[in-house]
Every structure is written in structure tokens, then in C-alpha cells.
């Protein structure tokens, strides 16, 4: 099917719970993709990946090419796509269980190497698809089937973790502020280098945070000047600042490692390859 005949949103039946924060997120992504298309970043050069969980269904709901990955590995999968062809624009979707639990190491090192990827995390503070167990971002005392007496873990603050991992673009969004979230996603994709958009996603069934977020969420006017100040913003609990907390331009991985090359576009032909192999064989004589 050609993109010309396909809306950004697919016709697949949507099975998120009515009122799920994911609807707002999906809408923001749709709007963001349309904006990006208008700016010349079309779906022809765009790839996505997703982990496993309620969030992952977005892979089916979007008509964008890519690979629907496995739990926690979406950030590794998407880096493979980007490294294979740096011309492509890539976005990975993960849940808080995927991105901040099962696959946290991939995310930290994606930031550390400054892979030019955008990671959008549907952070709903629980494992919803598996019926509401505690997740890395669940608050202390969170009760779920695996923690009936309340979670004793101190939750992960993903923004602080990624800021300490030298991420060059760290943002937080809220589906209740859809236009704002749309703009964040557009900025994240356009940012050259690693970008994280942590999305405060209420889960109406297992962790309904609408009221809390509506009260605490506050749009930031501008990003922090320094990484240290950004960490302070990330640590605020009295209010939840949304927007770009921190942004810094840094050399991206593929430009550091292979500035000129593109593994799938600039291939040697068979003769050149054999010549290269022959040279090495001759050195071994």
C-alpha cells in the first residue's frame, strides 16, 4: 500500500480503554507526522519501532513503516535501523516497563553514544496490558497484583536518569496538552541526536492520574540553561514541568563513527569487495 492512499492513522480497530491517555498521544503523533511531512520529512524516510504493552499497539494504529519489536528492545531495534541507513528519521515507542525497566540499558547507551533517534515513552506508571502490576515509575505504595501490600521501590525518575546519561534532548509531555505534545514530538524528531519525550500517560483502568496531572502539569517557557538546572526541574514534585527540559547540540553517533558512509547506500561492488579481501589475505602471507 502506498502512503498516498494511506492516512497516518490506520483503520485497525483501536482497543485501548475508553479515556486512555494513549488516545491523546496517538493524536499528537499523527499531527506531528503531518507537520513533519509538510516540512519535507515524509513517511517514505521515516521508520518506527515499538515495544510490547498497551503502548505498542500504536505500531498498528499508525501507517508508518518499521518493526514491531519485543519488550524493552525497541530502542535497540530503532538504532539498528538508523545505523544501517542514517538518512532515515526514526522514532521508537516504549512503555515505562520497556524503556525504563527491561530495556533501560539500551536507552542509557543510546543517549551516551548520541544515536540520532527519538524515544517516546508512554509512561503510565504500571504494567497495564498484563493487568496492572507495578512498574519502574510506579510510586511507592502502588498496589497491583504483584505488590498487594504496596510497592516498596523508590520510583525511577526517567528524566533525571537520561539527563545524567548525557542525553542531548530531554522533554516531558502530557496528552492533556495535545498541541504542546505535538510540538514536542516535532522538535524531538528534528533534533539531531538522541531525544527523549517522556509522556505522562494516565491509565484509566489501573492508574488514573488525570486529576493529579491536570493539577500539577505546568508548561515550561523555555528549557533550562544548564544540565544541572534541568535535573532540578526533573526533580520537582510540587509541580510537573512539561516541555523541553534540556537541549544541547552534540555530534551524533553515525557522524562520529562513519561521517561519510552509509552502510546500505554506499556499498562497494562485488569486485571492489573481493579486491579488499584479497589485500588482507595478501597481508597474511
Amino acid at each position, binding site marked *: *500500500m*502506498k*502512503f*498516498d492512499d494511506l492516512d497516518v492513522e*490506520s483503520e*485497525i480497530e483501536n482497543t485501548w480503554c475508553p479515556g486512555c491517555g494513549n488516545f491523546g498521544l496517538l493524536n499528537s503523533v499523527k499531527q506531528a507526522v503531518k507537520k513533519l511531512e509538510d516540512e519535507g520529512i515524509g*513517511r*517514505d*524516510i*521515516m*521508520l518506527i*519501532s515499538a515495544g*510490547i504493552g498497551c503502548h505498542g*499497539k500504536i*505500531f*498498528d494504529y499508525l*501507517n*508508518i*513503516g*518499521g*518493526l*514491531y*519489536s*519485543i519488550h524493552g*528492545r525497541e530502542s*535497540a*531495534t*530503532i*538504532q*539498528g*535501523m538508523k*545505523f*544501517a*541507513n542514517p*538518512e*532515515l528519521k526514526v522514532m521508537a515507542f516504549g512503555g515505562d516497563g520497556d524503556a525504563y525497566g527491561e530495556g533501560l*540499558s*539500551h536507552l*542509557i*547507551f543510546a543517549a551516551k553514544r548520541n544515536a540520532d533517534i527519538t524515544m517516546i515513552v508512554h509512561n503510565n506508571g504500571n504494567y497495564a496490558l498484563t493487568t496492572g502490576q507495578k512498574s519502574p515509575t510506579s510510586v511507592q505504595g502502588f498496589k497491583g497484583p504483584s505488590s498487594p501490600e504496596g510497592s516498596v521501590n523508590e520510583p525511577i525518575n526517567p528524566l533525571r536518569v537520561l539527563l545524567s546519561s548525557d542525553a542531548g534532548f530531554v522533554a516531558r509531555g502530557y496528552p492533556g496538552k495535545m498541541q504542546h505534545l505535538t510540538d514536542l514530538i516535532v522538535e524531538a524528531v528534528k533534533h539531531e541526536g538522541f531525544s527523549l519525550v517522556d509522556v505522562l500517560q494516565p491509565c484509566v483502568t489501573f492508574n488514573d492520574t488525570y486529576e493529579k496531572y491536570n493539577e500539577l502539569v505546568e508548561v515550561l517557557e523555555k528549557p533550562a540553561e544548564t544540565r544541572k538546572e534541568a535535573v532540578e526541574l526533573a526533580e520537582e514534585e510540587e509541580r510537573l514541568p512539561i516541555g523541553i527540559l534540556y537541549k544541547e547540540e552534540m555530534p551524533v553517533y553515525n557522524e562520529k*563513527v*562513519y561521517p561519510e*558512509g552509509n*552502510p*546500505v547506500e*554506499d*556499498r*562497494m561492488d*562485488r569486485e571492489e*569487495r*573481493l579486491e*579488499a*579481501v*584479497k*589485500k*588482507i*589475505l*595478501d597481508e*597474511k*602471507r
Partner: protein
Amino acid sequence: MKDKDVFTYLIGGKAGEGVKKAGAAATSLFLDLGREAFQMDDYQSLIRGGHNFSVVSTSTREIYSHHMEVDLIVNLDERSRDIHEGHLAEDGLMFYNSDDSGEKDDGIGLPLGDMAKEYSKPDLIKGVAGVAVLAACNGMDQKDLKELIEKEYSRGVEENLSFGVEVYEEVDKKIDKTFELEEGKSESTVLTGNESLSLGAAAGGLDMYIGYPMTPASSILHLFAGHKDKLQVLPIHPENEIGVANMAVGATVPGARVMVGTSGGGLALMEETVSLAGMTEAPVLFVLASRPGPSTGVPTYTEQADLNFALNQGHGEFPLIVASPGSVKEAFFLSNEMLELVWKYQTPGIFLTEKHLSESAKTLDIDLDSLDDDPLETKMAAEDEEYKRYEKTEDGISPLKFPPAEDLIQWNSYEHDEMGYTTENAETVEEMHDKRREKNETLILELKEMNTVNEFNEGDTVIFTFGSTTMSVREALKFADVDAKIVQPVYLNPFPVWELEEYMGEDAVVVEQNSTGQLATLLREKCRIKPKTVIRKYDGRAFEPRELAAKIEEAIK
């Protein structure tokens, strides 16, 4: 000595004394004489101290294994003398470091400690003594020794030359005979198995190699990192094996030909992704370089206990190609071939090998012209047709298309429909299982036209073996008084039953390096071959050819 079929040289010492380098220099010397050689490095999982040795066997004929009946031994420390004294052949010469061992009755003492301490790297430089002793004992003149040192020890060459000549003169004074190895006619290259398989894949159009260090696979990563510009294969070393495997699957979506490499523990971490590759139909070639397990096991030694592990990779049902080379040379052509196969069939492949093949070096001649210049074709979608990633076809193989593209290209880990959307529909679930199974049937038809089983020698008794042990068996049969034919299945999954049927019911001998006889079981289950004797070894060391010869004789007679 001149007519001796096999001449074996061994140097032993502590890690950090240049033992492995000395082995490589000896191999280079034999190569310069036009001889064939096989070099095996025995080292421990440590950086300093312990005991390492490098053993090189050479012959004017092709040689498939090192031997442990040694004609010339150079011991850089007392522990080495202790361990290797018993390996000395009749008429052999043994040198030892008299500064470490004191004066001994057996062997020729050299004050290597005193001599080396005058140099800036007194430990590392000791290895040069190994080459100097070999040159002197082989009756080479100083000029030849200097040339060899300049070639092999270019870093700090002045000191190496001076020390080498000093040792040479000392040895010259103390020996009353030389070996004078006959020159051969070989114009070989020398490669390790890992080098061979890497270059084979590069020749086949590899775009990326992704790996996380793990012995004995690490040197593949080092090769691609060291030759990035020459080979134009992008090397990546990510955070862990799970990252490795998933990056690899991702890289196939835009069409990169990618290979990953690891050992058993690493593949265990990757296994979820092998299954992902099966479901998404991602062509990834996994190199499994085995070592003795279970768990951390004996990291720097060899074993063939991961055959079942390789064959049973991944949950769920999907086509999986598993093959294992029986020689360093075959590693080159097999990685090349497997890369083509995984792409044609869009499914994961496992290139199974062991430390003994991965890290041993052998003289060989690779004829690049013998590579098929008409490689297996990857089925690509026509430009103007409506694209479906998992389109049902007669042979089960869906055409590929890579972005940038105007079409929606969706790969999916969930069961999916032809477009790649997730499905739980009973009919579609069944159809997609059928599609992947049909792909496997097409693959089997393809394999039936290919060389999937190697046979060596002629004889009434059949000896089955696989992987690196093939080399041990081939060398052993030079010393066994038996008429036996070696049968080595190269492809292990799909198992080439069609080639092996003729041996059904045969009283065969099986030789393999594990404790439970995994190949024997496979032969019994798949082909109803009844192994009469299973010769096993599982002490981490490769078979010694003459010892194996004795076991084969005992089994057959």
C-alpha cells in the same frame, strides 16, 4: 630429521611474555619455508601470569591439527618446563630459562631472565627468544632471523633484533645438531578461523558486524574494527548481547547485511531475538563460537557441547539454518554461503564453530575466483506492485522492499497478516505458520542441490564428526592403521538426511568433543544410524592426533 612428516614447535611461559606472538612468528617462519602449518594457542582467562603455550605443527603436506609430540620446546619459565617436559619427542630438543629453573639435567638452559632484563620490556621481549631458538635450531643464518624479527616484531624492532641475536648466538654455542626443515612448495596464507569466516562474510557483501566481546568470538569484532575502512563493514560494539541482536534485526529493515558473533552465554542472551528474527523474517547471521560450558565454564578452551543449543534456538517454530565448518578454509566459504541463504530465506542462521577452529591458525589458500559469481538471489518486490511485507507466495518467500519507499513496510513480532498488521485471527495465524513452514520446505529443496555433507578418505568404516573435530580426525587418520571414511555434515539444520540415508543401520564411529554424544544422538534420531562407538573428549582440549588415532584403531579393530 629431514624426512620427518610432522615437525612440532612449542613455546610456553606466562601471559605477558609474548608466547602467542612467538607462535605466530614460528608459523610465519614455516610459511616462508613453503611449508604448511597449524598453530594452536592454549591460554588461560587472565592477563598476567598463569601458563600459556603456543604449539605449531608443520609439514610439507597439508596439516590439519597441532600435535603434542614436540620436537622443539622453548620454556620461558619453570612451570612451562614442568608441564611440557613430557611432551618432548624422542630426539627432540628442549630449552629452558635457567634463571627461573636453575640448571637442570635435561634440556639446554638459557639465562633468559638475565639477558632480558637489559631491555625496556623484560617480560614481553622473552617471546623473541622463542623465534631465535627456532632459527638457530633450524640452521638458519642470522640474516634470516633478522628479517623474520623485522617482519614479525616491528614494534621496538631495535631491541628485539639485539635480544634475538644475543639468544641466537647463545643457542648456537650450545647445540650440536640442527633440524634443517625441508622446504615445501606451498604459497599459502595463514588465517585463524575467525579471520577466515569474517573475510568470507565480507566478500559476500556484509554491511555491518555487531558484537559484544566474548571469548572466543571477540577477535571477529577486532578484525572488523581494525579493517573498517578497508572492508567497509561497519563495526558496532553496543552495551550488551541483547542490544547486539536487536540492533542487528533493526538493521535488516533498511536492508543491511548484518552478522553478529558471540559464545554460548551471549547467544543465550540473544535467543529471544533469534525467535524475533524468525517471526519478523529478519535475515541475521549469528556466529556461535563455542567454549566449554555450562555457564562461564572454561572460557578460553574448546568444546562442542552447544550443538543442541544451536539446533534448538528460539521459542516457537520457524526456519533456522545451522551449519558448522570443518576447516579454517571452509569457514570462509560457509559464512559467505550462509549470508546468502539467510537473505534468500529471510530467516536467522547460526554459524556454529568452536574455539579450536575460531582461534587456531592454519596455512591455507583461498581462491576468490572459486566464489560463486552468481550468488543466491534475494527476492525483491517490483517497484510498481502493491507491497505486502508478508505476501503469501508459493515458495513461502515474500518479496522484500527497503525504505526509503512510498510503500508501507511493516515487520512484526506479533503474528501478523500479509500487510504486517498484528492479528489473532485463527485462519491467519494458521496461514502464517504454513507460510514459514513452506519457506523451510523450499530451503530443504535448495540444500538438496548444495554440498551439505563433506566426505574424506575411503574405507569400510564410517567415522562421523562435525565442526573443528573434523580437522582432528583428518589428521589422526594419517596415523591410524585403518580404512575409514570421514563423513562430516556441514549443515546441521535442516539436517541433510537425504545425504546420510545410505548409512542407515551402519555400525559407525562418532567422534565429537562433548560428554553426552550430541552428534551421535542426532544421527540416531534423524537417520537411524547406530553409532557403535562414540569417541568423546570434554577436557577443554582438542584431540591430539596420535591419541585420537589410537582410539579410532581401538574402535574399529
